[in-house]
């Protein structure tokens, strides 16, 4: 018989005493697991490391006193925050640790909020309750919130701050792009504060497009909008030649002609390139329209479309009608009605038509469209959602054409389909989608945009701010945006101001552009006579500005209408226009004001009073300010410029009444200007 050696089981549990001993040992060992895990925990390791680091510093005692061992926690019930990050990030509040480069011991950089009030994960995301590095920072165990990469951090500001902030340029830009590039035409974005995000682009109506341009141009544009204008915000739908052919066929066939859209051209075309260029310059077209120069740089404003190749696009008979009065073709256009005379219209049209690119349409040869092609084109126009942005006769604007993005910043990663090789995080998904939407699936309709990397990052930042936390935030914590103003001036003057598109550049009562001065209190600020002269011949107030008020060839009646309205309606309650006289100040006062101007306040650094001696280039020229502004406005401006015009660049000098009065006397003695200039 072979002797079977005792098995392990028999060795350990062979007899009851031994079994009891072994079980006791196992029991004791298992009891030690929890304390051992605690003892060797990561946070304890980091706290030891911190204590070792501060030991040799000069302020060791202070730091030692501030240090609290054990797991630390910030608990904010109204925000749903349980953050234990400070267990390892021990020195976040230590002002003296700015020279420490190693994490997790660095001081938190200065921000406007207290750590104890907002915790960490409200801004940084991550798992606040976790106590190990990986679980806190990365998305392990299918947790949803990895740490937010630094480049998107401003999205967290946007959860509470619904309007732009000076310290969050990326977020502000992203929000602007969502509106400016028309993303919100197709994607609904319900704002956490109520309402929806509104587009700020102005896609043209296509109902009369055949009056304006040719089918060939429409085809080329549909194929590649940026080939026509590098700054075009219209995305590329990557259409096949046949699809572009059929869509252009439909759009042209669907267009209804309006009699006022075109004019009969003069038999003999006149050519005056020099005159056209100077009229283009004098009319400050470049304030709104850009042109790409020979070096490839795009120079000019972005209120209106780029005009580099406009001659290859528009029909001459349409262009002349447009220049004569753009509101005939598009009642909502941002372009002013310049009131050009016939000669000017022909000259300017000729100048613009010469901005052509023969290559653009060289390879576009379209046969006359068949009814089948037109029908197919209509289906495509409908399928691609063209009517989300453009008005097209016979096609309704589609509802909910694209997925709603109101909570995109909280979309669970498990619901996302990633491209191979793409990091599995929400920001990477959003950025990837914006960068190349069609790569995610061949059938997707979202077109290809031409965003730069920085633009994609800012768009992603803005979208990440649209999340569950933003939607569920207690109202006490939200900082609402300034509600958009739909101010419209009334009556005949109001009609004139719409016709002249004043609001494309000027802001009044919160409505309008920011290219030119805010006119909300203009009636308190300027003298009537000056305003009349300014309308007739807008001079330059700020020498360094390239964008200036154009001349609109207004009739005397129109000028009076506008001036009366501005002088009566746009009055500040803080300024009594008639409280101070326009002239008659004592020589002593004027002299004192002059001394203050050049001495104590050194205004000549920014302003010019004496054209021979002063060189200041920042503020408006004050050579004739006594004939331009009211004394009461000047006085109040001296006292507090930002109270009259928020954001004004002139510093508030907290002037005494005496100083302000003397400076007002000196400035009001600077007479002359518009009237004299007009007489010459």
């Amino acid at each position: 018989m072979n002797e079977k050696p005792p098995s392990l089981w028999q060795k350990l549990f062979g007899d009851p005493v031994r079994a009891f001993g072994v079980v006791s040992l196992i029991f004791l060992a298992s009891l030690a697991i929890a304390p051992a895990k605690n003892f060797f925990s990561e946070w304890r390791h980091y706290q030891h490391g911190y204590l070792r680091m501060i030991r040799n510093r000069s302020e060791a005692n202070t730091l030692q006193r501030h240090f609290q061992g054990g797991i630390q926690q910030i608990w904010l019930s109204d925000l749903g925050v349980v953050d234990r990050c400070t267990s390892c990030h021990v020195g976040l509040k230590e002002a003296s640790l700015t020279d420490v480069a190693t994490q997790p011991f660095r001081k938190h950089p200065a921000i406007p909020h207290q750590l104890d009030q907002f915790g960490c994960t409200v801004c940084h995301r991550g798992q606040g309750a976790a106590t190990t590095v990986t679980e806190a920072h990365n998305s392990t165990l299918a947790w949803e919130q990895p740490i937010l990469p630094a480049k998107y951090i401003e999205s967290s500001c946007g959860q509470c701050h619904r309007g732009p902030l000076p310290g969050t340029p990326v977020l502000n830009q992203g929000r602007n792009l969502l509106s400016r590039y028309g993303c919100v035409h197709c994607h609904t974005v319900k704002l956490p504060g109520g309402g929806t995000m509104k587009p700020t682009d102005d896609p043209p109506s296509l109902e009369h497009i055949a009056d304006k341009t040719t089918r060939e141009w429409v085809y080329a544009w549909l194929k590649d909008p940026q080939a026509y204008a590098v700054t075009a915000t219209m995305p590329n739908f990557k259409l096949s030649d046949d699809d572009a052919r059929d869509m252009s066929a439909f759009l042209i066939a669907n267009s209804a002609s309006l009699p006022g859209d075109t004019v009969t051209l003069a038999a003999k075309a006149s050519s005056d390139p020099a005159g056209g260029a100077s009229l283009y310059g004098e009319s400050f077209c470049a304030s709104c329209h850009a042109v790409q120069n020979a070096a490839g740089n795009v120079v000019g404003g972005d209120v209106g479309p780029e005009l580099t190749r406009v001659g290859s696009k528009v029909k001459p008979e349409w262009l002349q009608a447009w220049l004569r009065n753009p509101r005939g073709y598009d009642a909502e256009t941002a372009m002013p009605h310049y009131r050009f005379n016939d000669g000017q219209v022909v000259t300017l049209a000729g100048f613009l038509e010469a901005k052509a690119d023969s290559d653009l349409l060289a390879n576009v040869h379209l046969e006359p469209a068949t009814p089948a092609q037109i029908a197919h084109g209509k289906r495509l126009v409908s399928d691609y959602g063209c009517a989300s942005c453009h008005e097209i006769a016979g096609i309704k604007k589609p509802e909910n054409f694209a997925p709603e993005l109101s909570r995109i910043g909280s979309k669970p990663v498990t619901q996302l389909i990633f491209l191979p090789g793409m990091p599995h995080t929400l920001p990477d998904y959003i950025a990837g989608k914006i960068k190349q939407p069609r790569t995610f699936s061949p059938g997707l309709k979202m077109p290809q945009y031409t965003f730069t990397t920085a633009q994609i990052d800012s768009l992603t930042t803005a979208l990440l701010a649209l999340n569950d936390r933003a939607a569920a935030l207690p109202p006490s914590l939200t900082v609402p945006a300034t509600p958009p103003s739909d101010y419209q001036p009334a009556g005949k003057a109001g009609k004139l101001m719409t016709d002249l598109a004043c609001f494309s550049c000027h802001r009044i009562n919160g409505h309008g552009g920011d290219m030119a001065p805010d006119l909300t209190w203009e009636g308190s600020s300027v003298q009537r006579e000056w305003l009349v002269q300014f309308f007739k011949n807008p001079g330059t107030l700020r020498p360094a500005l390239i964008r200036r008020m154009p001349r609109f060839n207004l009739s005397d009646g129109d000028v009076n209408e506008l001036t009366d309205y501005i002088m009566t309606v746009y009055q500040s309650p803080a300024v009594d226009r008639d409280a101070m006289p326009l002239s008659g100040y004592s020589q002593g006062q004027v002299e004192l004001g002059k001394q203050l101007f050049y001495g104590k306040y050194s205004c000549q650094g920014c302003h010019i009073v004496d054209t021979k001696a002063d060189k200041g280039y920042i503020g408006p020229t004050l050579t004739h300010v006594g004939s331009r502004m009211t004394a009461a406005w000047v006085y109040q401006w001296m006292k507090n410029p930002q109270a009259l015009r928020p954001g004004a660049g002139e510093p508030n000098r907290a002037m005494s009444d005496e100083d302000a009065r003397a400076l007002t006397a000196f400035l009001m003695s600077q007479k002359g200007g518009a009237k004299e200039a007009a007489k010459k």
Partner: protein
Amino acid sequence: MTRYSPSVLWLMIAALATSCSHRTESAPTLKPTAFGTAIVESSGGKQLAQTGALLPQPLVVQVNDEQGNAVTGALVEFAAASGVTFDPANALTDSSGQVTTNVSLGGMAGRYQLMAFTFDKSHKKVELKVEEIALGYQQTLGQHLADQYCQRCHNPESSVERVSNYDNLDVKPHPFTEGDTYNAISDADLTAAISHGGPALGKSALMPAWGNTLSKADVQALIAYIRAVSDPPARNAGPVYAKN
């Protein structure tokens, strides 16, 4: 109770290991076709960007030989502190001897030291150090305020959108990059000059008082910005993040 056979267990571990390792996989290594002896910066150093953001301009470096001629086909690699990314992280020099890379800075505000290196014929490492500046929240706010209120006078450079007033001033302001000047001024004195104007430090009244226009936090943000951009760096500018 089911028991896994060891082979299945090993298979699972192996599968797990391969699935985890795909991220650490490095790009296929480039083979240099030429070697230089020096590496110099062409453009892209000393730029400002927000933390984590792409630098406005790419970093361009050039590899030269002993005679100072550009070398085509030399391998250039980039390295920096963790958090900094290069696209691409290595490349061969083009026909003009240059490599262009897009750089995103790390998540901490401060100075970042970027390294570009190449190897000469004897495999000796030749390296170039370039510094870039990442702006945190406070410095970004300071930059915004500086652009709005200060740079028209303090920056001698004109742009299309901003014509400089520097040349028009009888007493020239100090550009914010002028480290030698600003590093000698304490935070308290800088605060006084910004809040109460030049005369507070016995300087020109052309520098107006901003204390009624800017908040205390605004002034601190401006100082943080000035400290961040001054060259040479301020004493208390903090550490330089470099590859360790």
